[in-house]
Every structure is written in structure tokens, then in C-alpha cells.
């Protein structure tokens, strides 16, 4: 809190030093006694302590402060409902990444394989590696992603390991968390990449304001 510095002359009483010393001691003594004899409020919201105990320390591993909604934790690759990654290997995250910690290799779902997870978007990452040691947790990759396929909403941080290799998170390790689908996702609009049967009629319906007045 900023306050005005005043260089007023000390009064005689203040110059005596001793009374002011004792008053100062009183402040520390008051804090000491309150903190010594009353129970610490373990609520992790450190800004809002209850009771006379004023200790604001958070005992970290046992108590954790709830992260704000925008907290950037460990990355995850967001899955679709069918478990495949939403990622289409567009390299936007790898391009924007200032630490160059993202490595992607793109692949193509085979056109004639009906078991391929989704044939509407034929492109997918065969390899998606994040070097968490190089990552500077800036969140640019999340911002850059056009498909909502990479998020930092795991709330995980301070992931530890004893070998560097463990921080090279591969696609399998990154693909986690709840699935996310949007109404605008292409696979909700069509079966596969071929032209739909009655596409013409559907397309013409949008011209009629009576049926589709959106």
C-alpha cells in the first residue's frame, strides 16, 4: 500500500526513543500472543482469514490454494467423444511456441478404412510430443489452437521426475481429461468425407426463411 513519506521533525517524546520502542514491542508482542495462543485458520483462501490468528501461511502439500480459472497447468490433448484427439496436427501450437517445445508429425486417416476414428477430418497427429522441461507455460499454444485441441486446464503443476526423458510427454500421455465436443465440429454434420446424398436440398433449405429463420 503506498503511503506518503513525511519527514516531520520528531517530538521530544519520540526523540526519547524508549517510549516508542516499548510501543513497538507492544505490536510484536500482540502479534506473537495472538498467533501463539489461537488456532490458525487452515482455510487456504489466504486473503480471508477468520479469527484472531493472523498467520497466512499455506501449508503447501497438505493445503492447496484453489487455482484461479485461468490457471495454466500441465497440457493435455483434448479427446473427442470417441477418444481420438481433437487435434488435426495443424502445427499452430508448434509454430507459435516461443520455446519450440512442441513436436508434431501429421498423418492421414486412410480413406477406405471404415474403422478409422473419424473420416471427416482426415488429418491427425501421428506424433505429438511436448518437452515439458523446455515449456515456459506461456499458454500461447492454447491461444493458437484453432480446434480447442490443446488445453492447460488440468490444474497439475510441479510434475516431478528423476529423469529428463519422463518430461517428454507423448501423445498417449497427453491425451487425457474429459472429452470436449462443440456443435460446430465437422463430424457432427456429416458421416464421412464424401459428398452427402441430399446435400443440395439441405443447402437450399437455408434460403427459405420460413423453415430456418436463424
Amino acid at each position, binding site marked *: 500500500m503506498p503511503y506518503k513519506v513525511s519527514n516531520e521533525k520528531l517530538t521530544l517524546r519520540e526523540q*526519547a526513543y*524508549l517510549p516508542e520502542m*516499548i*510501543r*513497538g514491542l507492544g505490536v510484536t508482542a500482540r*502479534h*506473537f500472543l495472538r498467533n501463539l495462543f489461537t488456532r490458525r485458520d487452515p482455510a487456504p483462501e489466504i486473503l480471508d482469514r477468520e479469527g484472531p*490468528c493472523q498467520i497466512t501461511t499455506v501449508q503447501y502439500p497438505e493445503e492447496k490454494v484453489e487455482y*484461479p480459472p485461468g490457471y495454466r497447468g500441465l497440457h493435455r490433448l483434448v479427446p473427442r467423444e470417441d477418444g481420438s484427439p481433437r487435434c488435426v496436427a495443424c502445427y499452430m501450437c508448434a509454430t507459435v511456441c516461443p520455446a519450440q517445445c512442441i513436436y508434431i508429425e501429421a498423418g492421414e486417416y486412410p480413406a477406405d478404412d471404415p474403422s478409422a476414428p473419424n473420416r471427416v477430418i482426415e488429418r491427425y497427429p501421428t506424433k505429438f510430443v511436448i518437452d515439458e522441461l523446455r515449456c515456459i507455460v506461456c499458454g500461447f499454444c492454447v491461444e493458437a489452437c484453432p480446434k480447442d485441441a490443446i488445453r492447460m486446464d488440468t490444474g497439475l503443476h510441479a510434475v516431478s521426475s528423476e529423469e529428463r526423458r519422463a518430461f517428454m510427454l507423448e501423445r498417449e500421455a497427453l491425451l487425457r481429461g474429459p472429452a470436449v465436443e462443440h456443435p460446430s465440429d465437422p463430424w457432427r454434420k456429416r458421416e464421412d468425407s464424401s459428398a452427402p446424398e441430399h446435400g443440395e436440398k439441405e443447402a437450399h433449405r437455408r434460403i427459405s426463411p420460413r423453415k430456418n429463420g436463424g
Partner: protein
Amino acid sequence: MRLRWGMILLVFVGLPALLFGLSAGFYALAALAEGLFTGGAGVVNVFTLLLVMVMVFSALLTLAERKWSAAMQDRIGPNRANLGPLRLGGLFHFVADALKMLFKEDFTPAGADKWLFRLAPALAFIPVFCLFAVVPVAPPVELFGETVSLQIANPDFGVLYVFAFASLAVFGTALAGWASNNKLALLGGVRATSQMISYEVALGLSLVGAIAAFSALTPAGGSSLRLEQMVESQSTWLWGGGGGFDFGVPAWGILLQPLGFVLFFAAAFAETKRAPFDMPEGESEIVGYFVEYSGMRFGLFMISEFVEIVVLSGVIASVFFGGYHLPFGEAWLQGHLGDFWFAALQGSVFWLKVIVLAWLQLAIRWTFPRFRYDQVQKLGWRILLPAGLFNVFATAALVLLDPSLRLLALFGLAQIALLVYLVGSGGKPAPAAPDERPVAVSDHDGVSA
């Protein structure tokens, strides 16, 4: 309000009970040893009082400094060291500290004077440790047919002994600074030396008043320099006393010599070289005379600082706060408890006084900013010394005027009243009202508590 009942019980019941038990045990040990051979009590007292009480107190003070300062600053302090599941709020941190010190590399810098370099920590530690020898912890009492007291030595020159050994400690500091072959260490050593010299005078002068005052209460043939005699003198009543439960105004040094107390406390504090008088250490500028020390050699410097706190508290308690005496009900308690148990009670009273005074010293350290070096010297020479001289003359005059010391006590009470008035008439509002919680404004979400 959610009170920590465990802590309250520990402080107000557990601690006195523990000290009471320890004092009784020490008496018993001393008496048994005295039964074996003459002077055995003194030997046992060296072990019980010096090696057990003072050393354990000092070691615990290293932890207390961290925990208490944490409480003063709204923190928790170290609480992680543990023995398996046993944490005890971080009690074992002093063990961890000691182990760390012991196992660290003991490094001697190239170009250092090896002999002096190794001698210095011992020279710093031993005199401080020896100081406690003359401090009376509990009165003499008859036990198992032997008269024993919890005091290692009881020489006639008790106060002079304190002055002499307190001054010796500076040799360790100065030698450490010199032998390290390090200009910063040397600076620290020189600062320590000059600071010691400045405050030595004020230290001695501040007690002259007390000695003069207590001489009036000393029976003929006794020595008012003897510390035990000083403690005994303070058990006399100035006003009141007597009756079933005796109650009144005792002749405590703090009442007779409030100015002398302040002067002695300030001067002695400067001798301990702790903040706000930590010029020789000067952590933020020169690191200090022990900059080249590591491991347990540094540990000796550090522990000697805490031993000094304990010893200083003991001396102050003896001279100004009635030593092992309670300010009320002594005769009544003695009648009900019997001599031995009453003496043990007095021993625990002494240690409680030491704890409170040690806390006061730590609180001072964590409350006040450091002095500048010129301010340290100015305080010593231009304030403490003249005030000490004034105190000597005023005390002497009042003792001569009224050998019953009531006039002196009135003068002292007037001083205390003036101080209380000055403290109470602080022009500015108190820094933080008790119910005022710290206001934190977060500009992140606009929520303020």
C-alpha cells in the same frame, strides 16, 4: 475465538511443572554428590545447570528465534523436521541444525592463522559459558543432611566476575576477524572490539547504582557484589509484607533502579552483538567476523550468542527482578510446602523469569531496525554514559538520605510512571487495532477482504 488449549496448557502448566521437577531433581543430585565428597554439589551443578539447562536453553533458543519471529510476523516458522511421524511443531529442527553443523566441511581458508583461527571460536564461547557460574538459580536448602544450592560458585566478587568474563568474549571475536585473513572479517572484528570498549564503561556504570542500593540492605560483613546477596536483598519488603499471605512492594532492582535497568539492558544487549547492535556481524554489508567459518566452528559463534542471551537473562533476573524470589506469598508458601519443595519452586520461578527475559530480547531483535554504526557509538558515549553517571549520583544521594530505600523506590516509581505516561501518550494512533485484519486487495478479481 479458537484457542490452542494445548499450547496454553504447555506454557502455563507444563513448562512450570517441568522446571519445578527439574529443580527438585537438581537439588537431589547436588545433595547426593555433596554427600559423597565435599564440593560435589558444585561439580554436579556444573553439569546440571551449565551443560543441561543453559546448553539446552540455548539450543532451543535457536529454534525459538525462528518460531517466535514467525509468530511475530504472522508466519508459521519451521515445522517440517520430524522423527518419523513425530513432528511436535518442528521441535527437531534444532537437532537437524546441529547435525548439519557437525557434518559440514570444516574449512580453513588459505593464508589464515590456523592456530588463532581454531582458537577463536573457543575464546568466544568459553567466557560466555563461564559467566553463568555465579548466577544463583535457587537458594541454599538442607537436603539429605547437606546444605546445597543451585549455584555453581558464590564468590564475593560476583558482579566483578560478570564484568570480567563478559569483556573476555571480545577476544574470540577480534581474533576470529584477524585470523580469517579476510578484510570483511577483520572489519567485523574491529567493529566488535570498538563496540565492546564503548559499552564496557556503560555496562559497569549502570550496575554501580544497584550495588550501592543493595549495599544498604546487605547485612554487615556481607558483600553487596555477591549475586546471591543481591537476590536475598530483594526479598525484603519496602512496604507491606507480613500477615498470613504476605503481599507488598518488594525491594526489586527494577523498582529501585529503573534507569539502571534500562542502561544495563541496553549495554548488555550491545555486548551480545545481536540486532539492533549487530554491527560486527553486519550481515547485509560485511557478513561479519565469522564469514570464513563453517561447520561447528561457526556453530560455536552462533551458540555463544544464544548462551549469552540466557546468561544475560539470568543476570538481569538476579539483579533487577528478584532472582528466584516471588513478589508475594513466599512465607506462606514456604510454610505450606516445606523448605525443599519451596526451594524447587523458587528454582522454577527463576527459570521462568529467564524465559520471559529471553523472549524480550528476541522480541527486541525482531522489532527494531539496526542502528547505524555512528548511532551505536553515539548511544554508548553520549547517552548511556552520562545517564549512568547521573544514576550513580542520584542513587547514592537517595541511599544516603534514606537507608530504608523507600525514597529511592519512590524515585524509581516516578521514573516508571513517567515512562508509562510517555508510552501511553503516543501522539499517533496505534499501528493496528487488535480487531483489524490485514486488508488485501487483489486487482485480479476485484475481491477485497
